[in-house]
């Protein structure tokens, strides 16, 4: 089933979002956001794959460059995104840490300061 990878990608995005909807803990919400983002990585990398192709690195000592490599563009997009998402997740977790310190709770149902 050749679309399996793509379906997994969208499933991850939906599952991550579902996790945030049902979440009772803000740290759990932030991690679910990470899950949703990893869905986009799966999508990008699946798009870039080519059967029987080599990785787009020719190494040192170099092998003969060939055009039949997996797509380096999506790999470049994904790898910078992974590091960026790690730091943005850290930013959101820092907020969660401070909320816990100030409110004493991480349950979004109990944080009622911003309503109306």
């Amino acid at each position, binding site marked *: 089933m050749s679309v399996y990878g793509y379906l997994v990608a969208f499933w991850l*995005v939906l599952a991550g979002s579902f996790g945030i909807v049902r979440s009772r803990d803000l740290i759990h919400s932030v991690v679910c956001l990470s899950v949703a983002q990893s869905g*986009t990585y799966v*999508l990008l990398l699946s798009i870039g794959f080519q059967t029987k192709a080599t990785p787009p690195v020719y190494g040192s000592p170099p092998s003969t460059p060939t055009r039949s490599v997996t797509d380096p563009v999506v790999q470049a997009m994904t790898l910078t995104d992974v590091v960026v998402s790690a730091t943005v997740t850290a930013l*959101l977790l820092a907020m969660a840490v401070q*909320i816990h310190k*100030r409110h004493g709770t991480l349950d979004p149902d109990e944080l009622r*300061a*911003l*309503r*109306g």
Partner: protein
Amino acid sequence: MPGGTAFSWLPPTTVAVPILGAALLLAVGRWLPRWLTDAIPTAVAAGITVLTACLLARTADGHVVTWSGGWRPTHGFSVGIVMVSDPVGAGAALLSAALATLALLYSWKYFESVEAHYHALVLLFLAGMQGFALTGDLFDMFVFFELMGASAYALTGMKVEDPSALQGALNFGIINSLGAYLTLAGVGLLYARTGNLGMPQLHQSLEGRPVDALVVAAFVLVLTGFLVKGAVAPFHYWLDDAHAVAPAPVCVLFSGIMVPLGVYGALRVYWIVFAGVLPGADIRRAFLVLGVISALVGAVMCVGQRHIKRLLAFSTIAHAGLFLCALALLSEDGTAGALLYVAGHAGAKAALFLLAGLLLNRFGSVDEHGLYGRGRSERLMPWLWVLGALALAGLPPFGTALGKAISEEAAIKGGDWYLSIVFVAVSGLTGGAVLRVAARIYLGLGPRPREGEAQAFESTGEEKSEARLRSAPATMVVPIVALLAGTLVAGVIGGSRSAFSHAAAYFTQPGAYVHAAMTLTAGTVSSVRQPNWTGLGLGLGFVSVAVALVTAAAGVYSSVLADRLAPLVRVGSAPMRVLRQLHSGHVGDYVAWLMTGVAVVGALVGLPLVR
């Protein structure tokens, strides 16, 4: 020039210089005296303002194209990233730089003590906005979108002693990030189909090919992130939370330019990539539905608020809905009106947020009920509030009024006459809410509102101020006056009218954009009409002001009226209560609404194509 057309060095410089400034502040900020940590970023932002003004002047003669890295297109393909500056993009870049400069100037006295990190984050936010407005590559838009986001989340949550600040920042962060990831998924789908990431190349790849579910899904997904940023209902819930807690100068940047940039992104992607491919009538209907709902929800929620910054936030949501409605007409007139409205609104809304910040620092609260009558001894402030409120309501000859007038006429000409009613009602209601605030605080009009505990579904304006000031210092008043003056100037100067319609012509003609990018020739685009003040436009403007005055009066005397009109109030308050309860502050609710919004947009765009 290897990199592109003449002056192709300008766009990347406006991105690189704030980054260098932020790096400098990070490295040595700890040892600099406060005045230097204030002066350096303000100077950098002012410099970027000058650069973007030059860029805007340059775009009058055609697009400024920059191929980053010197990777010019060969045989219609390029591996590099293109930055295409047309008057709209350059204008957005100029607006963001000007607002950043004024916000940083205001921060000199607004914060009693603040680390250099704040200034560095504002500079990085500025770099993100510059990149977003000027780039022509879809993945690059996503990257700068995330840069705007990361700095914005941090700036929103800055006041860590205030627990609601962190919650607002977290809601903001989760919803905007989720929107950005959905946009990335859409970009991936487009890349899979065409093998391109740049918008001019995507235009060429999709042109003339049949539309199928993949293209529609890609369009809906790409749009989602920009609609989230543009606070279009039902993606808007994060905005009122973020504005309620972010410091006032930061709110200036959010409401003045960041939210309009979201709407800009959505329409830019539509025009360049999808305009030749998806049927305009369906897209127009989709955008109109979203815009009208946003505008009405924002206006109704705005009137019911007592937390002043939240009130202003809802009025931003309402106005963003109006911008979307005007742009949704997909005509040069509508676009010109929207652009002028954005520029005028930026000045008025920014001034009002700065005034709210002044209130906080003088009196320690932004609660309308708690501040009743406390401003009676002020002399300058009441006038500035009233001017800002009237500008928001659309009093001629402010720029907001001209933008509104042009948009209304474009709507009527296009057959959507009901839109003019929406425009008048929404601008009147939001302007009236702000007038009511000014009347209560500075004039002490009307009966004293019931104080005490807020009801179960509303937020009060309890907030800790950053500094205690006895009088308003010049560095805080000058930006406010400058912003209001700018709004007035935009509507009055004849040259501005033709400039905006010229810009609109560029925005709605993707062929010129694509041609300039791929062939590096700066061709010009001529605008068809010269919009002007007309009797109808002036009339509608005065009607809006009348609506505002009535709203303000009704609000000030609401307790008296409620007694007289009890049955009406009972009927009207139930849906209002439901609407207010929907804005719960719970991030799970917001995600559910986000997904609903994606489904709705998908249905609006996709179902007509099934037939």
